[in-house]
């Protein structure tokens, strides 16, 4: 059963682990205490839908040298011990090393000799701690000789660059996402509601192998253009409506995130201009994506093109973000972010134009991976403007 359960080979997890320990030495962090689902999954191979229940914390401890230890609720021990590449999985509850999670974690700190440690954990930079404030406070009091610092500099640095195996998952997630779009434009018609559109896309993505937890926002018609992440409603599309869909599938925990805009029946000249401009800006941004250059240059290139085309005033946000085990990661595709692009980074490129309140939102978002020679666009679905005639 083990081979089926681990998504990556043990060697891949070991490689991540060694890099992590190296960075910990540099940062003078003795123990990394990870509580966020995506980080636990990245380093251990284990995940559970309980990550999103706020009642039970999950903790993975990574020391500067030696093996990791993971602490889970008692009934999760069975899955966790089968799904991880290491041996030490401890549980709290009946039969466990303590009756409550925080005492259990403290107990492991004690038995592993971590009581006098600098502990890095998820305090900052777009990572919410996987335990309540009170639980964290209780833990700090039970570990008075430990100091707690932010550890997400390390987790982000590792997760930023995807391995070939990770990239395969991103590619597959993106392929599935595009299948959803194809199914939609083959079936959409006047009078169809946003919810019906969601059903078509979601069903197709599930058929193609999307995991649970996909995301999808869809907004059609002038009253919806100025809603950024609109949840599907019973609004029925009519002639002249633009439909914007921003959605993504997930495979082995890896996300894709695309946006497409299509028209029902007809599109006016102004909208067509802005659509074409957004498309050109997107292409420019993709061309600027290559290793060795600050990621902010992608945003700079997009902004320059927008200025050239005379549409700068319609740009309301940065050119996108990076993506992986979470939909929003760092670095950010904004001019101020000077992180140097490296092969394996996954960008969602979405420089967009907005003619608010009711002219339209023109966002065509692609998933692009930095490669040794430049970039590769993972999202094969058309960026031509589709006009639905039926």
């Amino acid at each position: 059963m083990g081979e089926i359960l681990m998504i990556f080979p043990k060697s891949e997890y070991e490689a991540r682990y060694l890099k992590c320990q190296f960075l910990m030495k540099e940062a003078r962090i003795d123990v990394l205490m990870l509580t966020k689902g995506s980080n636990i999954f990245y380093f251990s191979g284990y995940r559970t839908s309980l990550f999103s229940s706020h009642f039970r914390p999950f903790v993975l401890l990574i020391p500067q040298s030696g093996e990791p230890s993971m602490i889970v609720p008692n009934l999760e021990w069975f899955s966790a011990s089968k799904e991880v590449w290491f041996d030490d999985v401890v549980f709290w509850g009946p039969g466990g090393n303590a009756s409550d999670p925080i005492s259990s974690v403290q107990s492991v700190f004690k038995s592993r000799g971590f009581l006098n440690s600098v502990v890095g954990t998820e305090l900052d930079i777009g990572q919410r701690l996987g335990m309540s404030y009170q639980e964290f406070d209780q833990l700090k009091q039970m570990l008075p000789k430990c100091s707690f610092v932010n550890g997400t500099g390390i987790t982000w640095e590792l997760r930023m660059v995807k391995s070939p195996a990770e990239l395969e998952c991103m590619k597959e997630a993106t392929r599935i996402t595009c299948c959803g779009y194809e199914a939609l434009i083959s079936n959409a018609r006047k009078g169809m509601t946003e919810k019906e559109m969601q059903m078509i896309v979601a069903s197709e993505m599930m058929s193609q192998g999307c995991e649970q937890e996909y995301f999808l926002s869809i907004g059609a018609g002038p009253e919806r253009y100025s809603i950024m992440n609109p949840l599907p409603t019973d609004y029925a599309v009519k002639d002249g409506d633009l439909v914007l869909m921003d959605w993504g599938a997930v495979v082995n925990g890896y996300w894709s995130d695309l946006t497409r805009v299509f028209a029902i029946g007809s599109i006016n000249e102004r909208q067509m201009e802005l659509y074409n401009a957004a498309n050109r800006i997107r292409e420019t941004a993709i061309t600027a994506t290559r290793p060795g250059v600050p990621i902010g240059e992608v945003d700079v290139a997009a902004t320059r093109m927008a200025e050239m085309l005379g549409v700068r005033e319609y740009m309301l946000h940065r050119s996108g973000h990076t993506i992986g085990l979470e939909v929003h990661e760092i670095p950010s595709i904004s001019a101020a972010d000077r992180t140097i692009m490296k092969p394996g980074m996954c960008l969602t490129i979405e420089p967009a134009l907005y003619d608010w309140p009711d002219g339209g939102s023109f966002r065509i978002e692609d998933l692009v991976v930095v490669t040794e020679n430049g970039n590769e666009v993972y999202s094969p679905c058309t960026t031509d403007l589709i006009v639905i005639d039926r």
Partner: protein
Amino acid sequence: MAFSKNEYQRRLEKCQKEMKDAGIDVLLLTSEKNIYYFSGYRTSLLRNSNFRLFSLLIFQTGEPVLIVPNLEIGAARIMSWFKDVRFWGPGGFAAESTEAVKKMLAEKNLLKSTVGAELAPGLRFYMTQKEFEIIGQILPGCRFVDCNGIMWKLRMIKSPAELEYMREASRITCASYEYLLDNVKTGMTEKEIHKIVQIGMIREGCEVDNFVVVTAGDMRYSSMNPWPTDYVTKKGDLVLIDWGASYNGYWSDLTRIFALASTTDHQKDLYQAANRMREISIEAARPGVPVGEIDKAATIFARESGLIDFMLHRSGHAIGLQIHELPSISATDETIMSPGMCLTIEPALYDFSRTGPSKGAFRIEDLVAITPEGCEVYSKCTTALEIVA
């Protein structure tokens, strides 16, 4: 909006009364579901990104305020019933999200006040620890206390309108079970079974949010909440589905088990016992008694049947905007059941091994709502042990 303005107004008034009783001057709410509960506004951004803070402030008197990142202002104004919706960021009333909170408190003369926030287990705030630390530093005159008690008190009792959404979420879930039984075959993988359940829910109107756990075969019975795998099912396998749809943000959570081709007598016995336990637990669900009585009833049955060693957990939990809510259906929870409470009743029996294959997980979970007379079962799908070809 999912609810009438009157309903939102009532929630606000109840909340303000609780705040007065607790001596809390202002609530700082940042979690996705509390923001939705009080304002009607929601966005996938709150889940997909941990980078932008959304805050909802409720004062003891007067209008509450919703503060969102700049690009969400259009959505927030349309979707929420609040009069006062502001944004932080370029052009906003504050440049940063934490500064926005301070400015708001300053405006309301609450720089020296008791602030309720989501600090206790079960309902976590959607701030980073750093953001909360900053807020504490820029508001040195404020005292921060936990407000989850108030949140649970309000959200524990669902209104008729909320119950309609809970019913619909359960209906969607049950319909997908029928769809699954019609389409599943021995030899399918867990992932293929997952696909069928998903499509079954989607075609019935399930919202984007859902969860589906599928475990099959003796090496998987002891996995409680895993993702489905490529395991190929075979004759004699039990298949457990623990899943739920959401509808207007309200969840269902059901568990069903079916068998492929055949079962052993031991499995049939345990299944029947678990089913009987479920029935007894549902009978114990009625207003005016502590919710712990449900768990006690299940435990007594298990003990009298000689099966107490197979009971590994409490008998369930409350549910609503979150899958797991309070109260807990455990013997020690003394919360008195009241009409409008929604509970997932799942006393279960497990025949696990720590080292080798297990014999089965027997959990049949139903969703009930407490009514003035007792309870109403919302999960109207078969609890018979279906044997599929």
